[in-house]
């Protein structure tokens, strides 16, 4: 006789953020078609209440590992950290969108509804062990992003970017699913942890190897690792900048969480397939990403190529998982991800506070002489560019240090060498921007850029937090943060 498993209170604690977001999304959708509550103000109230309630709920997810719905939902440190990070990014992006010229079209019933729904898909993605749930969460997040990309500002550029992102994103999902299907056929389980446990006995089978390889390719596509990066520059350039900031950060958080769950236990058993593939992706991403960023004139496109290069550095740390001592690489990946998210959000916040409706595709030349006109913005951008380039005393330096340290501990000398060369190339275009801001005379009159508003803005608040945290993570906090990541790393490595 079949009986339903008992639903405990800890299940509700774990599922609460997702449930809140889905409920909020439905409310926003209904508001959009209602007579009295469709105004921007009332949609904003719903969106903010939902996101804050979800953040509070995510903060109290139980830290001890438990699984619900046959692995469809996990509690634990990684799930809590991932959910909290994604929700915090979503809240920051909403703050910035509020003051951006696309804000009015973002806070419409259907757009806000899709946004909240896709965030719930991301939360499912970071706290699931089941292939079915993972796939549905991934598609919920991806389809939501395709729609938002082309719909918030429906112009030629964004529609073209959306359809390109749609085609390549769907192909990536299909490839990932093909890999999942072969792994399921070989192991007979839909659980990620079950697959990780079953792989050692069947690792030499041809179809298993193909499945493992395709899974990695699918994840590589979503992480925008070269040669699967073609969608990223187009999507990043064409999207409204707030959505670009959201995409560039949250997608990496959710995909790396899944990658950690899969790779931390299984990378050494499948290293004959995964290690060379990941090595190629890491090297190509660091080299091609940095070189292509060098020749860009569009600011957002340059940041897109730089984010591809940063995915490459994280792939270096994934390569370091090939040995049995996985604690250090896992912590390095998480720390690097944290710095990347902070600095990306900050850099895009700078871009957003300079954009106007007339000039929403800033070039690097547009920033010439910015220090005279907007000294604080120029200073924050300098901190972010230093951090991206890996210069002390910023978080980016410590992040690169941990990644290269993890790789050196595993004797990946060649990879570290290429990484350092890539960093040196990247310094050229990051510092070129700083030089432009401080030394060059304005090429175009500043009329195209948004003048300083004078008062307190939420975008400036996000910026200030990002700057301060970037500097703190580069000076006094890294030891503390790495201590706190030990629990998460041991939890991930145990599985």
């Amino acid at each position, binding site marked *: 006789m079949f009986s339903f498993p008992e639903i405990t209170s800890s299940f509700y604690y774990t599922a609460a953020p997702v449930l809140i977001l889905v409920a909020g999304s439905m409310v926003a959708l209904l508001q959009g078609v209602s007579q009295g509550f469709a105004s921007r103000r009332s949609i904003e109230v719903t969106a903010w209440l939902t996101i804050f309630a979800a953040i509070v709920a995510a903060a109290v997810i139980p830290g001890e590992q438990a699984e619900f719905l046959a692995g469809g939902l996990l509690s634990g440190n990684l799930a809590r950290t991932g959910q909290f990070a994604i929700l915090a990014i979503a809240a920051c992006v909403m703050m910035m969108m509020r003051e951006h010229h696309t804000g009015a079209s973002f806070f419409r019933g259907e757009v806000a509804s899709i946004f909240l729904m896709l965030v719930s898909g991301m939360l499912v993605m970071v706290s699931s062990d089941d292939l079915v749930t993972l796939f549905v969460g991934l598609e919920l997040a991806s389809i939501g992003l395709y729609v938002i990309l082309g719909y918030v500002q429906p112009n030629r550029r964004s529609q073209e970017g959306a359809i390109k992102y749609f085609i390549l994103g*769907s192909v990536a999902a299909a490839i990932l699913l093909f890999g999942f299907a072969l792994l*399921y056929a070989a192991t007979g389980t839909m659980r990620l942890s079950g697959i990780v446990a079953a792989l050692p006995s069947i690792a030499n089978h041809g179809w298993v190897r193909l499945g493992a390889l395709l899974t990695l390719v699918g994840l590589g596509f979503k992480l925008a690792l070269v040669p699967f990066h073609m969608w990223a520059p187009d999507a990043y350039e064409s999207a409204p900048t707030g959505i670009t900031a959201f995409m560039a950060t949250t997608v990496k958080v959710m995909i790396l969480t899944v990658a950690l769950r899969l790779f931390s236990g299984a990378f050494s058993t499948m290293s004959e397939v995964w290690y060379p593939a990941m090595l190629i992706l890491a090297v190509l991403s660091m080299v091609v990403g940095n070189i292509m960023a060098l020749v860009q004139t569009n600011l957002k496109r340059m940041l897109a190529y730089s984010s591809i290069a940063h995915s490459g550095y994280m792939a270096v740390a994934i390569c370091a998982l090939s040995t049995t001592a996985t604690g250090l690489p896992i912590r390095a990946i998480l720390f690097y991800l944290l710095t990347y998210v902070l600095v990306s959000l900050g850099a895009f916040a700078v871009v957003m506070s300079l954009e106007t409706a007339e000039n929403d595709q800033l070039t690097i030349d547009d920033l010439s002489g910015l220090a005279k006109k907007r000294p604080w913005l120029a200073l924050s951008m300098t901190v972010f560019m230093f951090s991206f380039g890996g210069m002390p005393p910023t978080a980016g330096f410590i992040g690169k240090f941990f990644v290269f340290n993890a790789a050196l501990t595993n004797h990946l000398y060649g990879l570290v060498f290429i990484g350092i060369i890539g960093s040196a190339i990247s310094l050229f275009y990051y510092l070129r921007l700083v030089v432009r801001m401080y030394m060059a005379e304005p090429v175009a009159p500043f009329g195209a850029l948004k003048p300083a508003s004078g008062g307190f803005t939420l975008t400036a608040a996000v910026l200030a937090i990002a700057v301060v945290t970037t500097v703190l993570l580069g000076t006094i906090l890294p030891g503390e943060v790495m201590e706190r990541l030990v629990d998460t790393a041991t939890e991930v490595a145990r599985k």
Partner: protein
Amino acid sequence: MIPVENYFILSSLVFLCGLAGVMFRRNLIMVLMSIELMLNAVNIIFVAASRHLAQVDGQIMVLFVITVAACEAAVGLAMVIALYRRYGTVNTEFLRLLRG
């Protein structure tokens, strides 16, 4: 009895047809259909494996994949219609604003 590997080979071939369609067709409707073909190729593996292992898990997954594929098709077609209204064609050669 047909060995389960044969289904994997069939599925791989169908999947490659879909991938080739996405890469080489210039008509967006054909590209969308090729994406559907890829997802349905994966369904063959899930059903075959599920039958081979005497489990229902794979078949349940197929239901989800079909649903998700329908959602993707809906969003994709909506985008194609938006592009058709703007350009008067569904050929991918018109998508050349974003370069480099």
